[in-house]
């Protein structure tokens, strides 16, 4: 019996923090398309059930397209059972919009709800965590050890309640309860581990990375369960339409934009990034205060090579005050004055010096 465990799809996510409106709209459509592709994958691979361990939607304000895509996807795959555990991002708006609850859509409440699968040897149990039930829910979990149990939860693994009252999962309280697979959601990075000698817990991560804090491979976990033996195999299936990369490039010693470009190029040659992906380049290192650095030029240069490119300048300016010690010019006087300023830190001094030197050199002060 095959099951898909996915979570944190965050459909209808705005995604405008990095992207332009047009690209954000395109990415939203791609998220929906990825969900559709997941359903097709499930159909083609004879998957019996899809467990969505929370945050199917990003916001309570769901667009009609997202709502209809999910609803039609569920209705059109009537042979697949969908276990939808609502996460902290989900609201009732999707369910509220359904004129009739599809037979193949199974929901969970704030107490444990179980659904048998197949001939009843596989049981999917879940509960939607909240500030009220996070602490006291575990004691109510009673599982028949004769059966294969999947337990779905959405929250952060923690041994104590966070201050903000967010949902948390105390793995200690779930040990030795007969759980074979703890299907978790909430953490956007993939992760898994041993729950107890019998079971494992797993975060599949988000289905598609949205921001540069969600770099790396994203997809879902495909479970292949042998109900008779009570065993299962799991496989992570990379499924994201695009990947996000954050690449740090040390440009120390570069005196010109061209030097920086060469440094970036070398980095990309070493670890290539496909054109369909999103890339964030973070420039690091120390640059001489008199060095020339034009980020606009660099973006113009590299942007066409990727779906999206962002360059962050996290370099530090380096000032060799010795060079200006004997400089009997206005520039030398200026640098010495700034150097002597006590109310500025070194980076502020460097910034002021760079700004002044650029201006005195006839360039636009940065």
């Amino acid at each position, binding site marked *: 019996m095959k099951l898909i465990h996915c979570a944190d799809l965050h459909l209808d996510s*705005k995604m405008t923090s990095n992207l332009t409106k047009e690209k954000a709209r395109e990415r939203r459509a791609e998220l929906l398309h990825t969900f559709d592709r997941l359903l097709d994958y499930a159909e083609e691979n004879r998957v019996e059930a899809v467990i969505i361990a929370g945050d199917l939607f990003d916001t309570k304000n769901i*667009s009609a397209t997202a709502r209809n895509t999910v609803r039609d996807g569920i209705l059109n795959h009537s042979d697949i059972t969908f276990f939808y555990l609502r996460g902290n991002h989900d609201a009732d708006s999707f369910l509220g919009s359904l004129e009739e609850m599809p037979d193949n859509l199974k929901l969970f409440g704030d107490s444990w709800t179980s659904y048998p699968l197949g001939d009843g040897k596989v049981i999917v149990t879940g509960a939607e965590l909240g500030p009220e039930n996070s602490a006291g829910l575990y004691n109510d979990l009673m599982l028949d050890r004769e059966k294969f149990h999947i337990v779905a939860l959405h929250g952060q693994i923690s041994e104590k309640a966070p201050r903000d009252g967010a949902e948390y999962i105390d793995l200690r309280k779930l040990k030795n309860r007969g759980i074979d697979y703890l299907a978790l959601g909430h953490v956007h990075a993939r992760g898994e581990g041993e729950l107890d000698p019998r079971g494992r817990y797993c975060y599949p991560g988000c289905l598609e990375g949205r921001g540069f804090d969600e770099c790396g491979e994203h997809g879902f976990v495909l479970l292949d369960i042998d109900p008779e033996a009570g065993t299962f195999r799991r496989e992570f299936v990379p499924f994201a339409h695009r990947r996000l990369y954050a690449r740090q490039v040390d440009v120390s010693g570069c005196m010109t934009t061209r030097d920086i470009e060469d440094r970036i190029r070398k980095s990309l040659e070493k670890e290539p990034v496909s054109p369909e992906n999103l890339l964030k380049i973070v420039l690091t290192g120390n640059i001489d205060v008199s060095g020339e650095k034009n980020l606009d030029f660099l973006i113009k240069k590299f942007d066409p090579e990727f779906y999206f490119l962002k360059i962050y300048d996290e370099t530090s300016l380096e000032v060799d005050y010795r060079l200006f010690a004997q400089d009997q010019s*206005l520039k030398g006087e200026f640098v010495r004055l700034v150097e002597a300023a006590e109310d500025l830190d070194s980076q502020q001094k460097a910034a002021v010096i760079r700004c002044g030197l650029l*201006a005195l050199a006839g360039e636009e*002060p940065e």
Partner: protein
Amino acid sequence: MRLVSCHIENFGKLKDFSLSFEEGVNTLCRDNGWGKSTLAAFIKVMLFGFEEEKSRDELKNERKRYRPWQGGVYGGRLEFETGGERYEVARTFGAKEKEDCFSLRKKATNLESRDYSDAVGQELFSLDRASFARTVFVSQNDCGTAATDAVSAKIGNLAEDTEDINRYEDVNQKFLSLINQMSPARRTGSLYRQKEEIGRLEERIRGGRGVDRAIEELLGRIHDKLAEQQALKEEQTELLERQRRIGAWKDIQAKREAYEALCREYQEREESLKAERGYFPGELPDRSRLEQAITESGGLSGGSEAVRIFRLSQEEAVRSGELERLFAQGCPPQETFQEKEELALQLQDMRGTLAAEQLSAGEAQRLEAGKARFSDKVPMLQEVDQVIADWSSCAERKNVLGQKKLTYEALRGIAQTGANGGGRKNGRKSARPALWAGLLVCGAAFLLAGILIMAGQPAPGAIAGALGAVAGVYCIWLLMHKGGFGEKREETQRDLPENDSLRQMEEEIREDQEFIENTVRNTEAFFARYGIVWEASPWDRENGVLGSLYSFKAEVREYITLSERERNAQTDRFNELCLQASEELKRFLGAYYPEEDLKEAQYAAKLNRLKELAGEYRALKEKGERFRRAEEGLSSLQKRIRDFVETLGMEPEEDLAGQLLRIQERLLSYENSRKEYEISRQRREAFEASENVEEIRKPCPGEEDTGDLQEINQRLEEIADRLERIYGYVSEDNRQLDSLREEADALSEDRENLEKLREEYAGESQRYELLKTTREFLEQAKISFTSRYTGPIRESLGKYYEMLTGEDPGRILVDANLNVTIDEQGMQRETRFFSAGYRDLFGICMRMALVDAMYQEEKPFVIFDDPFANLDGEKLKGGLKLLQRIGEEYQVIYLTCHESRVG
């Protein structure tokens, strides 16, 4: 560096002017208007070119200002010495800069040199034109000075890197401009605008907080509705299950009842069939045979009726016996009676005829008279009729004859007249008189005819009409054959028609006369032959002949008739026939009436009576025969039907036809019962085949939960209604939710924009602060940088000030920006607050102090264009003394207009 000489070709008012310069002070004292300032300007222009080239003001635009008054080549030469080398600069000026010519030659070789370009002044002094004007060129009324960037740079003697200090003012302006552009305090500042936009977004977001609350409320409402919907659906499901169970039970119950009904029906049909079959003791009657018997039995009533009808009554039987006896020898057929009746009629006719032909006495008398009169010959009626016709015709012709004659005479006269006229006149007119005469006669004839007819004389009227017609025909003939009024008829033919017509009329008249005469003669002979009186008077004769003829005709006719009757009455054969007929009839009748002596007059009545009796006899005979046949048929039919009934094992009843119908009815009833039985059986078997009878007969599970189906249905309807309403509410709420979500999206976008804007604002603010800080540091650096050479300048300034005024140079102060202040009564005062003489004094001193600082190695020449004009006598002395001292170190070109200012 020093000037050697100059030659002006044409420059302003100066023309072909040459001047040599010595080392030290070169004084040129000329009257006002000689062109001293023009000479000074010439030297400057030869080194730096023109300034204010683009100005339309001719005073400012030097190219225009110094255009040669008298025309000629615009320009000149200037020889100078620097670095031990002498050069000659030659310039000529056109209307525009591009028309200018420049050349530099080394005096030693007189070859063109590239040691300096056309910016020779800037290259020599490392100063731009403005800085030159502010330092070594002290013009009249412009003794003041200010340190330009170039001056500062020059003063700083930082020849290896003077770009930054040169650019300081630009940089400072750039910073100021940027700071102003970004200023958070100015409305045009980008930070101000960002802040405003942030405020607007914050305000919008504050205003939109209600949207989230509304969405929450709406979602809550939808949630409640959905919860209710869910509960209702669960109840609906439960009720539907109950409904289904009850329905299933009711189905089985209905089936059971149906099956039981089928069984009951089957049993009833079976019993009914048996009962129906019991009516027939034997075999079931064959339907066709029964129908045939019924058809035949239809004849029973007819037969009985026939027997009843044809049965002879007692009277008829007696009468039949009597007639039997009458016609013992046979009853003559109808034809015999018809024949005898005809014979009797003939006899009667003959007897009548005989009686009619008998003449009366009068008639016999008149017959005898006739015989006497017509003893010779009996005239034929046709003959008499001919005579009458001739006489009538004769009378008519007589009547017309007169007219004809008149006409003839008239025509004849006309013809003669025409013939005579024709000989005299043109042939064309020859027919006209005859025509007019014809028309006249025609008209007169018709007029006469009309009068006669009106007068009751039709015959003469007709004749007159005929005459008119003849005249008319004649006229037509004339028109046709003679041309009438025609023109082509020739004279040779003109007499012929008139002659023919007249001849014809003559012939007719003659014929009429002959006829009349013959008729009168013949009629008279006829009268004489038969003794009819011929009147002597012609008038009586004319009027009486016809009457006599008609009377005679009547006599002849009567005579003929009477003669015929007399002949008929005297025929024997006729009598014999009467006798034969009478005897035949007597014989015939006598056979039936032997005892009666029948008279001829009784024959017809007797015959008629006998005929009636014979008819009666035949009718009774026929009736009796029919009765016999009806009786036989009825008996036979009854027997057949009885036999049929008996074959069915039944006792024939009196009313056989009724019995047969009853049998048919019962048979039909039996057959219907049979069909119903079969149907019932088949239905039961079909039910048993389609349903599990055993199951149906078993008690139904949940049979006790019959519930109130009506109540359940009612509740289901209520739930469906409520669900529909909820659906409607949820749909409406969802629509509202969509709308609110759009607002929420817009708010979300606003929030994102706000966040971005805040980030941008923070970044911009940081940059703003950076720019401000940088500018401040640059300003400090500039001050610090320049303050380092203000000391030597102040020293130099003090030296010159003391030299010029003899006053304590300690009062003179110079700041880092090279602004001069004077310590006056404990306050540093700017020079602009002093008198014009002092200002010039300070300016000259400052200039020379700057020149000292700027040109520490090769000293330049200094031009003084009457700078002491504003000085009083004491200060003028000092000024001239200063000039001598400067001349010791610099080449001085001193231009003045007054001898008093010459040292």
